[in-house]
């Protein structure tokens, strides 16, 4: 019986991640529209976009190698794989083993590698610029992320995601949550690190990297980005709230509510903040890293007493 459940569980989980993820950008856009007093695009806009892109033909640069198509596919699989590792409340991850948290982080790094590689295929200056920024800021974001998971690991004495996502006492949890929120904004290329809406190439990171993609590969890129956003929102929620300890129903509700709150928070940040100048981005990421580092030191020292 158990095997039958797990046999069905994997596709169900994957479907949930893949189908729910494109909601998030829609929610963010609704929040932004609400703050600005506009009506805004429909909640399901990204679904329509994806469906349309999937049917379109592709224009590929004459310079690009097949890696231009391979890159988005690799990035998408990496992000989806990372999502499968992510535990959902008390249900745990689809696959859980010691050290899976590092696999999750490095899968995200693989996605970054593939996206940046594909961006450089076209030989375009703008895409090079975007890729350069992505990989450079990724250094700080990854250090912050490792510090964050290390603090969770110290807190719980485990390196398995299922056991790790039990939040700490509140000063540490607040530090960790604010650090992770900044990392979320940076990794998902949101304001104040990057502006997903702008069409000024010089100021973009992620959008600049995917300028030349079209058709199904672009759909895959956009969908992967939304899955990544959902992944980070879930990670942030479970790292800050004791969702794993609630009853399944309550846990699911709490998780959904907190993901919604995080998403709305992103929308509010985008409504009330301006994008930072690029030379200030490292400073902000360093601050995020320090928040995670202090959470780590707190967790480490807290247990020593």
């Amino acid at each position, binding site marked *: 019986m158990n095997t039958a459940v797990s046999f069905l569980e994997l596709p169900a989980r994957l479907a949930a991640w893949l189908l729910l993820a494109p909601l998030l950008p829609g929610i963010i856009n609704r929040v932004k529209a609400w703050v600005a007093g506009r009506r805004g695009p429909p909640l399901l806009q990204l679904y329509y976009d994806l469906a349309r892109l999937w049917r379109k033909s592709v224009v590929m640069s004459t310079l690009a190698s097949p890696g231009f198509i391979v890159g988005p*596919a690799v990035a998408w699989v990496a992000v989806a*794989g990372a999502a499968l590792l992510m535990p959902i409340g008390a249900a745990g991850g689809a*696959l859980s083993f010691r050290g899976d948290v590092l696999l999750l982080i490095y899968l995200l790094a693989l996605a970054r590698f593939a996206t940046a590689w594909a961006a450089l295929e076209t030989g375009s200056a703008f895409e090079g610029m975007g890729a350069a920024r992505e990989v450079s800021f990724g250094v700080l974001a990854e250090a912050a992320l490792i510090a964050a998971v290390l603090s969770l690991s110290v807190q719980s004495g485990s390196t398995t995601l299922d056991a790790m996502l039990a939040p700490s006492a509140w000063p540490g949890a607040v530090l960790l949550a604010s650090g992770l929120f900044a990392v979320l904004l940076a990794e998902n290329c949101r304001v104040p690190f990057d502006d997903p809406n702008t069409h000024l190439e010089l100021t973009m990171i992620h959008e600049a990297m995917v300028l030349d993609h079209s058709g199904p590969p672009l759909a895959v890129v956009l969908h992967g980005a939304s899955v990544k956003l959902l992944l980070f929102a879930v990670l942030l929620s479970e790292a800050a709230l004791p969702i794993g300890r609630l009853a399944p129903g309550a846990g699911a509700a709490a998780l959904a509510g907190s993901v919604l709150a995080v998403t709305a928070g992103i929308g509010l940040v985008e409504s009330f903040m301006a994008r930072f100048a690029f030379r200030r981005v490292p400073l902000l990421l360093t601050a995020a890293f320090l928040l995670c580092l202090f959470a780590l030191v707190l967790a480490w020292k807290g247990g020593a007493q």
Partner: protein
Amino acid sequence: MTGDLLLLSLICLAAGTAVGPRLAGAWLALTLAGASAALGAAILVLYGGAAWEWRSAVSLGGEALHLRLDAVSAMFMALLGVVGGAGAVFAQGYWTDGEHPDSAPRGRLWWDAMLLSMSVVLLSSNGLHFLIAWELFAISSYFLISLERERREARAAGWLFLAASHAGTLCLFAFFAVLAGRNGTWDLGPMQGRAELAPFFWLALAGFGVKAGLFPMHVWLPSAHASAPSHVSALMSGMAINMGVYGIVRFSGWMPAPALAGWAMVGAGACGAVLGIAFALAQNDLKRLLAYCSVENVGVIFMGLGGAMLGAAHGDAPWGRLLLAGALLHVWNHGLCKSLLFLCAGSVLHATGTREMSRLGGLWRAMPWTAALFAMGSVAISGLPPLNGFVSEWLVYLGLFDAVSGRGVLGWAAMPAAVALAGAGALALASFVKAGAVVFLGAARTEAAAPAHECGALMRAPMLALGGACALLALAPAAAWPALARATGAWHPAWADPATPVPLAVLGFVNTALALCLAAAVGALWARVRVNGLRRAPTWDCGYAAPDARMQYTGGSFGRTASDWFSWILLPERVMRRPRGPFPPNTVLFERVPETVLERLVSPVAAGVMRLASGARRLQHGRVQFYIVYLVGGITVLAILALLG
């Protein structure tokens, strides 16, 4: 059986050294036979169980021969076989007699001499013989590095290597002499109980650290690896620096180490990992980039080793074993990936004649195999799943995480190390995206890249073999565990448990599943693109009508954001003349990242020493009268001292 294979290997390599200069075909056969015999012997020891030991009555230099191949040396012997064999095949296509009538025969001779001396170093269990083989190894490396002796750059690199190597050997002479003096014999073996020997471990660390390229003793490494012919670079980077690592592993296992040594190794390793890869990111020379990346990986290995020593010193903590296993597996992984990458770089150099990345670009068309293998090597060396670099970094991470969770004082070493490992990994990703993209993607930047051609079968086969080995270690990491378990057991008897403490089999399964999913997704997306229709057009780039090859992002600008964070140590030199006025004259932009430790620290000190020495030389001028004055003066001073008592 092990002994027979080793004997066969040594005989083949010796014969290869003898016939190498004249008979290329026979040389290749002998080298391959020797390398595979060495590999076979290593596998027998690693997977068969028993260590091999042989004492002979025959004495050499007054000392009886004593050879031993245990699991620790077998780890390195296995890598030696793979890299030595692959490099030899590559050399036949890359450094042919036709193109290099003068140096190719010499190259064959020294190649086998180097393999032979390295095997003897790994086998020998007698301090005197170890030193002799170590010196032969250094000399043969020197001749291989300066194979192209008509080029000034190669001569300078070789000389620097020789100088640095001898500085290290000096420490080793002192180290082995002290051991021989204290033990009463040159014979080597476990001497764990002898606490009074601990301070001399520092000598070993300095001596072997130079060879391993441990930061900040790596000064010789970038120029030597960049200027040597590429198959030599592959051997140097894939194997020769690991000999230094071997020395540290060997003697940290055999003798007591001072308590500070583990901390120092973790610290130097963490600094080396981050700074090494920061230097790599700032390079414009493809092979220098790869060389600095070796500094990074040696840093990762030393983090693991130092952590293992700390773990062993703190009650045999299980995480220490994970760190040791991770470091040893990283030796394999780095050796394989880095040789692969250097061979790819050699293939590029062979096709275009330049290592300067800013002159290349768009090579994937002409050299699809090289491009694909370089991309694979890049993913592997950046430590990304599903390839092998991830497996060893994962082990090191797990060890560090557990060390922090132990909440002991060692957290102060493990926390910064984990963060440094994360930063170094992300910087490695940036460096290799840069290297791969600037060389292989986009459009050709100059004429140099235009006449490129794919390398021949002799060059491609070893690259494929190395790539295959990387894939094997990635998809079945559990297969490496018995070897690692034996090696950690040989290092520290308390860590001999053959059961895996971490789910390596699950990781292998995940890697395999991931590789399959990647293939399926790529296939599906490609099929969808075919169905929808695919049109080729110039790069859109927000509507630039005529994108030019020179409008592409350059490697320098790609790495600039992150390398600016390290400008305090990179100290880049920039000469720029901007265009001014309506008809600007020639504009200039020249950038160079010096080897900071060498040019700002070692060279000034060396210059000071030289000045002092030349000052002292003035005392020696050949006039007898003054010599008598010295004599009288000296005696007077001595007499006064004696009188004063």
